[in-house]
Structures are given as C-alpha cells and as structure tokens.
C-alpha cells in the first residue's frame, strides 16, 4: 500500500513538471462554441463545428496566435445547445465562468443567438454567429454580437428584384411560425410590394409539423407565380416532396441557406427545378481546395455555405485577437472586430456598429440532380 502511494506521488510530480514546461512555452487561448448538435438543426451545427476545428488546426499549424508578443495555441470548447435558448444562455455562463473562454462562436437560430447576446453584453465577451440571418439579433442593440453569415435583410434586397426581372410578379409565402420564419416572409413580401409585385398570402407551420398538404393546397388556390418557403433543410425536403404530389407545376424558391447534398438525399427527384438561397458562392480555387480538405478530414462533404462561414468566422476572430494585442480586454477585442476588413471564403467581411455585415446571398438551382449556383444580382 505504502509503495503504491509513493509511486503515485512520484507520478503526480512528473506530470506536474511536464505540464509546467509545456505552459512555459505556449499558452492556450480558449474559444467557446455553442451550436445545436442534436435535433432538427444538428446538420447545421455539425457542419460548422467541423470547420471550426479545421480553422483551429490551420491556425495552430502555422505557429499559433501571436497576441501582444506572446504565442498562443488556440483551443475550441464545444457544447450542444439543442436549439434551446435557455440552454444557450446557460452554456454562455458555463463557457465564461468555468472554461474561461475569451470569445464565443454560435448559434444557429435567432432566438438562441439573442439569448447568447444578452449574456455576452452582461459579462462582456465577443460572440460571432457563423449562421444566423435573423434581423432581431443585430437590431436589439447588443454591443458584443457579430454576424458571420449573410443577413435576411440582404436577401430581401436581392431576391424580390430577381423575381420581378424574371416576370414573376405575385408570390405566396409558406414559413416556419417563429421569429426567423415570420420575419423573413414578411420582409420579402414588403420589399416585393415596394417594387411593384404582390404578396397573395401567408401560411405557417411549426417544427413538429410533417404534413403540409393543407397549406400547399390553400396556396395553390391563390395561383401565385412564386411559392417562397422559409424552412430548414429537413422540413424543406418534406414540403417539396409533398408539393410534387399536390402541385407539381409550382415554382418553389426557398430561403434559409440550404444544404443541397442533404436535400437531394432526402427529397430525391422532388428537388428538380427548386431554387434555394445559400451563402455558398460560385466555385473558386479557394472553395474547391476547402471542400477537398474538409472531405479528407471528416469523410463527409461540408455543409453548404455555413461550413465556410464558420471557417471564416474563426479566422476573423483570430485576426481580431492579434490586432487587439491582448487576450483579456473584451472592449479592445470588440473594437478590433469592428475594424475587420477580411476577404473570406463566402465574401468580403466588414461589420457595422450593430455587428451586421453586407455579405451577399446566392441562388442555387437544381437541374437534373446537379446544382447551378448563380448571383441573382447579375
């Protein structure tokens, strides 16, 4: 027994020595990640988490972060918020108090992002969401929140103009009954009417709904040129399959930044002719290289658009730390974030004082099982 205790003490001593030498060389800078990894939005969360890990790996491989003359190894602390705002808020508290992170990435939904921002303003920590598009997150006066993905307001400015140019003057809207869905459908309708189009009507559904026959048949009666849908990839797959059954000639355009690979897998031939918005730009050598590297690392294709915006957001955060010159001054970090001028995979990042950016949306269109991405502004 005594020998065992003695060897344990020795072992503990050695471990302590090793840890001491390691920390003398490079310190660790932790960033938090809070995204849904289970449930309806799990796909979005996983696609971002992988890309964040990839960015952390790339930063550390290039020698880590150099902040104020010291070198730091970046480390991501990842939590699942299950798309529940209560969970997001408590994860924020945990990340700051226990994990001692210096900035946070997340979340996907608007309600969760707002819950995180409320805590962030109170405890003073920078939050950047690589996904969120809902306007409420940047229009509620938060001081530490930044949007790392295209905003809904950009979609409203771009898409209805494209519809009118195509001669599609009337639209009906089918959207998820929450902040995101209602805000988006009403925003699109408003801009459409402002430029001479007409919104014929709105129908809503909830996260638990699986049968949309009634909504689709009611909209079919309105005879719109365009059916505009705000949905997650999973529910969109149900809607377009059911639309093919009850209204095969419908012209469907979807918001919400869809994952085309997953959509094709879930909805098969029902995707034919579908338009969907995405932050994913038409291919460049950089995006092709990113896709290849991501597939090598994780064995799956990246999530359309949002894996890239998550990679960009992590890089932007790292650069802001370097510009701020210290890791423990949240105000300096926030000001450094506001001074961002970064060309990333999904576009040119610059933030205004509300934390919003002016990243563009693109349209993807399914043709014979392939996707063609185009810029609807051209």
């Amino acid at each position, binding site marked *: 027994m005594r020998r065992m205790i003695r060897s344990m003490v020795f072992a503990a001593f050695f471990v302590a020595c090793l840890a001491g030498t390691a920390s003398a060389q490079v310190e660790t800078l932790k960033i938090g990640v809070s995204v849904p*990894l*289970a*449930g*309806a939005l*799990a*796909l979005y969360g996983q696609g971002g988490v992988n890309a964040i890990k990839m960015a952390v790996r790339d930063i550390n491989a290039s020698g880590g972060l150099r902040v104020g003359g010291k070198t730091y190894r970046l480390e991501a602390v990842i939590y699942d918020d299950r798309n529940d705002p209560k969970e997001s808020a408590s994860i924020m508290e945990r990340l700051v108090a226990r994990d001692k992170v210096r900035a946070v990435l997340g979340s996907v939904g608007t309600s969760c992002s707002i819950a995180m921002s409320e805590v962030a303003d109170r405890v003073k920590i920078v939050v950047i969401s690589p996904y969120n598009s809902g306007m409420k997150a940047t229009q509620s006066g938060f001081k530490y929140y930044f949007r790392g993905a295209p905003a809904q307001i950009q979609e409203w400015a771009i898409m209805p103009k494209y519809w009118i140019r195509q001669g599609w003057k009337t639209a009906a809207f089918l959207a998820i*009954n929450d902040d995101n869905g209602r805000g988006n459908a009403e925003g699109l309708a408003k801009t459409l009417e402002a430029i001479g189009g007409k919104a014929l009507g709105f*129908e*809503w*559904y909830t996260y*638990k709904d*699986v*049968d949309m*026959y*009634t*909504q689709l*048949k*009611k909209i079919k*009666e309105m005879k719109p040129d365009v059916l505009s849908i705000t949905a997650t990839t*999973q529910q969109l*797959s*149900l809607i377009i399959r059911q639309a*093919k*059954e*009850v209204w095969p000639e419908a012209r469907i355009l979807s918001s919400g930044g869809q994952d085309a690979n997953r959509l094709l*897998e*879930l*909805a*098969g*031939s*029902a995707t034919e002719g579908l338009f969907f918005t995405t932050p994913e730009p038409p291919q460049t050598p950089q995006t092709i290289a990113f896709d290849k590297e991501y597939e090598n690392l994780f064995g799956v294709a990246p999530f359309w658009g949002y894996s890239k915006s998550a990679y960009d957001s992590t890089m932007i955060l790292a650069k802001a730390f370097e510009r701020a010159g210290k890791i423990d001054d949240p105000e300096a970090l926030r000001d450094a974030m506001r001074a961002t001028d970064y060309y990333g995979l999904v576009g040119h990042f610059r933030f205004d004082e509300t934390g919003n950016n002016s990243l563009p949306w693109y349209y993807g269109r399914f043709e014979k099982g392939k996707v063609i991405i185009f810029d609807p502004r051209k």
Partner: protein
Amino acid sequence: MLIINHIMDGVVIGSSYVLIALGVTLIFGIVDVVQIAHGEVYMLGAFLTLFLVNSLHFNYVLSIVISMAILAVFGVILEEGVFRWLRGRPHLPVILAAFGLSMFLANGTLLLLGGESYAIKSPLREQMVDLGFYLINAQRLLVVVVSAGLTVCLFLFINKTRLGMAMRAITQDRDAAELVGVDPNKIFMAAFAVASALAAAAGGLVGPVFLVNSAIGFMPFLKSFVVVLFGGIGSVIGSIVGGLTLGVMETLAAAYVSTEYKDAVAFALLIVVLLFKPSGLFGRKTSS
C-alpha cells in the same frame, strides 16, 4: 370539390393515427397500462425498416414484416422486463415508468444513431395514383389500405380466436377469467406483442411518407392517446372512428380556420365530446 380533397387528406392522416391508437387501446384496455413508450416502438419500427431497406436492400414489404416480428418480441420484453413488476401498483408509478421508458428509448436512439433525419426508400414513394375524384400518392394509399387490412385482422383475432376471447374475458372480469383457467400473464404478453407489431407496421408504412428520426414517436403517441380517450378505452371501433375523426377535423380546421390553430381546434372539439360522454364514444361505463 376542394372540400372532398381536404377530407380525403384527413382520412389518410387519420388512418396512421388508427394503427398506433389500436396498440395503445389494446394495452390500455387489457393490461390497464398507459403505454407512453408506444410512440417510441413506432419510431423503432421505422428505424428498423429504414435499416433493412436502405442499408441491407431488403424488399420493402418483407422489411416491414421482419420489423413487425422483431418488435413483437421487443413488446414482450417490455411487458416482462418493466410492466410486469409494476402490476397491482396505483396508476401514477406505472405512468411514470412508461414515461421514463419513452425518454430512455428516444434518447438512447439519439445517442446511438445521432439526431439526423432519414428517408426510407420505399418503391412507392414517388408514384401517384388517380382515384378519379382524388389524386393520391401511392405510399399514402398503401398506408390507408394496409391500416384497413390490419384493423380487420385484429377485429377477427379478438372476436374469433380463443386467445382473442381470452383477452376480452380478462378485460370484462379478470377474477372470473382466472377462475376458468385464463393465465393473465400470457394474455398480457400477447397484448404487448400484437400492439407493438402494429406500431412497427405503422412506423414502416408512415416512415417513407415523412422522415425518420429519434424524435418522431411522441406526437403520434399523444394523438393516438387522444383518439383512444375519444373512441373509448379498449374499443377497436372507437379507435377507428376516433382516428379518422381526428385526422379529418385537423385537416378541415387547417383548411377553413387556420393552420396555426389546427391542433387546438381539433382538440377543443374532442373535449366537447368527452364532456358529454366521459367514457368515450364506444367506451363502456366503468366503476373506477
């Protein structure tokens, strides 16, 4: 003729409620247990069919039959492993155990298989059938036809076979049934086996119409529980009428009132029925 169209949509949705409600009403009527985890048995049936069809490339119909057989055994395990130990206890601990079982199965599946959704590749998924007055997706038609067929089989089983008669005897007077030599344990196991097989069939049939994930069980259970209360506990006819009524009411409420309040309207109408007939439409008056 849009209204006929809406009513038919309701009948299709309603017949999936019927299949699940039949199992709930069997277990409730015979074993006197509110099987809250019945929705999870439905979910497991859908996953099993998904695995057999998508991964092992089995024939779709054969896959449903196999998953019915496997989940019938699973139902017996549930009865022997969980509910048998709670026999004779008051309702509350039994309900809590069933609720715990439901959460265990749903979250266990989430842990093992992840939170993603999958589509069962049924051969009928993308075909349409024209009935003259109503254009219907072939998979949805299959749900209606097989539901009707299984319901008839169940009806014959309960009314014409010895085991079925023993089941009814247990429901009517357990002591008297035991006196004439009916073993309640065997009957309870049979009830769980039949009910779970029906839930597995529902999962395999409805799965391709929608999507399959670990969270799909709870809503169908809730709906079918309402159907059972509405139609009368233990009544096969009650489940059929209740399931179809709920399906049609929901669709009509969505079409003519509002899609936002479709569940509220449907449930409100059910509450009205229960106010005037507390034991349900086809339920017998009980002393408890």
